[in-house]
């Protein structure tokens, strides 16, 4: 029972934080709420017994991505700039459209018979050892290709960031 409460608690926190990301006027507040949302999601991972993911999630999102966001906000001094409000009608339309997406998705899920897959008993897959085996055996090639992707991103970030001679 406890885990059920934990689930609902984490979900509410995550949704609240996500909504606050949108509602906050200042970008820095958005960043902070987003961090909160990420922590809530990390909690979900732990709840799913995916400890490795939870750790990586914290490290990558809260540790790297959020820092990057904060860094940008500080660097560009964006916080003073404030907000560029959209017209209310657009906001309204956006909410309607988002709501429609939610309804459509839930509509499709409703018909899904979940009884087919319900075997989470022996759940050791989320541990580093198991994941590592799979990652470096079956998923070795995508893993290596990721390094290409990272190289591309690195070269790109350097290229975009540095002052040009031209």
């Amino acid at each position, binding site marked *: 029972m*406890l*885990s059920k409460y934990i*689930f609902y608690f984490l*979900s509410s926190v*995550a*949704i609240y934080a*996500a909504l606050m*990301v*949108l509602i906050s006027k200042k*970008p820095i507040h*958005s960043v902070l709420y*987003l961090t909160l949302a990420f922590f809530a*999601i990390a909690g979900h*991972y*732990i*709840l*799913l*017994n*995916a*400890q490795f993911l939870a750790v990586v*999630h914290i490290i*990558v*999102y809260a540790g*790297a*991505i959020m820092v*990057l*966001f904060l860094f*940008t906000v500080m*660097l*560009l001094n964006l916080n003073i700039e404030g*907000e*560029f*409000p*959209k017209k209310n009608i657009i906001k309204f339309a*956006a*909410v309607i*459209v*988002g*709501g429609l997406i*939610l309804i459509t*998705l*839930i509509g499709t*899920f409703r018909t899904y018979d*979940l009884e087919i*897959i*319900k075997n*989470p*008993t022996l759940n050791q*897959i*989320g541990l580093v050892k*198991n*994941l590592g085996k799979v990652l470096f055996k*079956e*998923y070795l090639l995508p893993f290596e290709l990721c390094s290409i992707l*990272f190289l*591309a*991103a690195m070269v*790109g*970030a350097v290229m*975009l960031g540095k002052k040009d001679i031209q």
Partner: protein
Amino acid sequence: MPDAVQNLQMIPLNDYIFFCSALFAIGIIGVLIKRNALVIFMSVELMLNSANLLLAAFSAYRNDPAGQIFVFFIMVVAAAEVAIGLALLVMIYRSTHSIDINALNKLKW
């Protein structure tokens, strides 16, 4: 955490799907509602995270590690994307002194 594992049965997978859909929809609304490119990036991150959580949930319920590996790859890509996105943002800011997406209106028709 053996308790958590056992208690997993009590949480229907449906709830995870609903929760992830909600998170996904919030991300979409964020992208549509905001003019600040930085906040749009954050909303996209929310969308990616909802997909991540969904994958992890499916993975756990199916007892198949592939889903979690995929999440790992998504995280990798997301990190790279954010780095590039922010670099682009800084570049734009240098030339236009704005991160308002409505300022991107030179190219049209």
